[in-house]
């Protein structure tokens, strides 16, 4: 049994089926990229793994480290080592970054029977992580993600990941809205966390990120199913040919559904209005 085993996963949001029988198997220490056009269901997959309750699993299973993932609530999953780097990190006014992160880290320690760290010990613990990801003290003092630039928010996500040391990290469009320098910084952070004890799922629309974080496997998801899997060269193929050829694959394998997923709407990828997508997932997965 793989570290994460997804079998025949069907997921709906408000009676709208988004994942339609997805299968995916991820071994410990592997890096998998999930690519697909907008609306294909790749972000839904990330949210379902993290345990967002707006998504209804109608069929199928996910086994994580030998257990039923659906038995665990979102916070239990996090304490068991699942980390979602959000596409749109949420702002939490009034809560200093360090305080938030210490509480999260200590929740995990307590869960594993360890003593919580006091503020001084915690600062000492995070120092190397701060240096590696260029996070300064000022950024730690500020409220979580409030007034952060797009790049800072994503860097903050990777910093949190670095501090929390998950066993399965899911990066949801971490590259969106980043310029090349910020992208490189984030990728360096991710690469430094690669380890035989840690698996990654990297959800992305573009091949660009995969120049910096080289995956072991690439999967193409169209209309709620994985239509093709391969090595890192599959991403390059996508870069050359686009998703169109894969969309026809999807329609072939889905005899009852003639409709082809429409081309990506650029607005939904980059617009800040998509912040609402977590609250109203229908717009995310439609």
């Amino acid at each position, binding site marked *: 049994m793989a570290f994460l085993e997804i079998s025949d996963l069907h997921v709906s949001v408000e009676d709208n089926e988004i994942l339609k029988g997805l299968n995916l198997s991820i071994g410990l220490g592997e890096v998998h990229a999930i690519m697909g056009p907008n609306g294909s269901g790749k972000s839904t997959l990330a949210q379902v793994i993290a345990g967002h309750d707006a998504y209804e699993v109608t069929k199928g299973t996910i086994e994580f480290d030998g257990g039923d993932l659906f038995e665990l609530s979102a*916070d239990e999953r996090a304490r068991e080592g699942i980390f979602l780097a959000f596409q749109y990190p949420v702002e*939490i006014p009034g809560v200093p970054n360090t305080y938030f992160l210490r509480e999260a880290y200590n929740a995990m320690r307590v869960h594993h029977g360890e003593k919580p760290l006091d503020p001084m010990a915690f600062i000492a613990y995070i120092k190397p992580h701060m240096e590696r990801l260029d996070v300064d003290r000022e950024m730690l003092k500020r*409220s979580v993600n409030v007034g952060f630039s797009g790049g800072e928010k994503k860097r903050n996500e990777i910093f949190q990941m670095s501090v929390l040391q998950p066993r399965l990290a899911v990066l949801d469009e971490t590259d969106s809205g980043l310029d090349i320098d910020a992208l490189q910084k984030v990728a360096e952070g991710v690469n430094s966390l690669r380890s035989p004890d840690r698996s990654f799922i990297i959800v992305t629309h573009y091949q660009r990120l995969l120049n910096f974080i080289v995956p072991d496997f690439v999967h193409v998801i169209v209309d709620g199913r994985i239509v093709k899997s391969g090595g890192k060269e599959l991403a390059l193929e996508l870069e050359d040919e686009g998703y169109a050829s894969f969309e026809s694959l999807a329609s072939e394998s889905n005899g009852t559904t003639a409709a082809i997923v429409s081309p990506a709407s650029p607005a939904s990828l980059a617009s800040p209005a998509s912040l609402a997508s977590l609250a109203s997932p229908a717009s995310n997965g439609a």
Partner: protein
Amino acid sequence: MTSTNDSMSTPPRPPEPSSPRNRPTRTSGSTPSVASGPNSPANPVTGGTPALGAQPWLDAFDARIGLLSSNGRSWLGPLRRKAIGHVAERGFPGQREEDWRHTPLRALLAQRFTPAKSTVMSAEAVARLEELSLDGVGAHRLVFVNGALNAEHTRIGEPPEGVRLMSLAKAIDTESALVEPHLARLALSEDHAFIALNTAFMVDGAFIHLPKGAQIEAPIHIVHLQIVDDFNGDGGSVDDSRSRGAGGEVDPDLAGGVGVSVDGSVVGGRDGDVVVLPAIFPRTLIVAGAGSSVHVIETYAGIDGGAYLTSAVTETVVGEGADVRWTKRQEEATGGYHIGRFNGRQIGPSTLATHNIALGGRLVRNEFAIVVDAENCETLLDGLYMARGSQHIENRTRLDHAKPNCHSEEHYKGILDDHSTAVFAGRIYVHQDAQKTDAFQENSCLLLSRDARVFTQPQLEIFADDVKCTHGATVGELDQQQLFYLRARGLDPAEAHGILTYGYANEIVESIGIEPLQVQLEALIRARVRASHSPVVADGD
């Protein structure tokens, strides 16, 4: 001072005392004859029968006027007499008055109070003072115990040349010409009895006078410590359980029922058994000259013990180009009644920023009245209140935009738990001349318990036609998106709620700008949030 005749207990309250301020449901001719106790003499000020509840105060005033006016100033005695005259004439406000409709005064008015005596600092009080210390930023500190200056713990550094930073009693003595034009000019005894009592009975307080251009770097910390445990000389110990029970139940029909205790017995009939509680009247006067700047923090803290009344008044005049920040930190003891008034007047283009942090007390009423009386002023009113148990915390603000081209912001936030109640009434009055006023007001409240109640009343009265005024009031729950983010980081629902609640409150604290104070308040809020209920939420899966 003796207390045997100081009883505030009186027969049931008659209908409203007559006054043009009251709603005209009664005429003055209808005032019934039961207005005073059996032994009450005629009103020494008006010559008539004193209003209900006033007599004990008149007696107390007569007993100590010699002492009070011994500040030796010819103007002060008449000021005090005029103030007590208003009490005699009008008595205490009641729930029939619009502004007092939601204030559960009944338990307070059923108590007997007498002006507190000063007392020594217990070890506990000294420890409390340390907890409140802002020495980290080199704050000047004035300490008042039960309204009287405590010289031992007062530490005033070297303020800039020409700055007067001293006790008000001393200022009345040595700087009378600077005090007299401003004292009791903004906070009027006509407004209500609690302000009048403060003016009549104030013993001391802080006086801050900044000449032109004076910038005080270190904040000025004024600590008002209320120590009830030592207050045994006049009244004995306090039966707090009785009055504590009274805070929660308010019957509007009986609201005026002064003198009737909660169990229905007439307190006045058992004079010998009735506890007399201390009343404390802190007073602060701030006069900021042109181009000056200062941050004044007033802390009101009670040493936990019995019941008492703090009736505080602060008056602030802000000159042209001045930048005045005033922060109130209210942590009265659980038995404390606190009625506070802040008056501010901006007489030139200037900045006045107030932060009002209300955490303690049993019944709390904060009044802010600010008149923006010059063009190009900035005014900030920020507030945070946290109530639990049967606490009642009320904030009433009135902002008068009298001149054009001014900007004001008001943000009040509340967190209510258990069966606490809160009132926010924010009035913004834009006068006809105040064109181009830009006023923003928001009040929001988190209810952590089904039994908690908040009454929120934004009141915009706009008489100019070219203004931008917005207000919003929300009573709500925490943001689901934020909750999921925290849970996705491993925090269980209760912890996630706690952190979001803390953040919600902390947004106000963050803007105070004095780090040690923020650190102290953050820790307090965190502890309060931890101890409070988390709303029950459905599990994520």
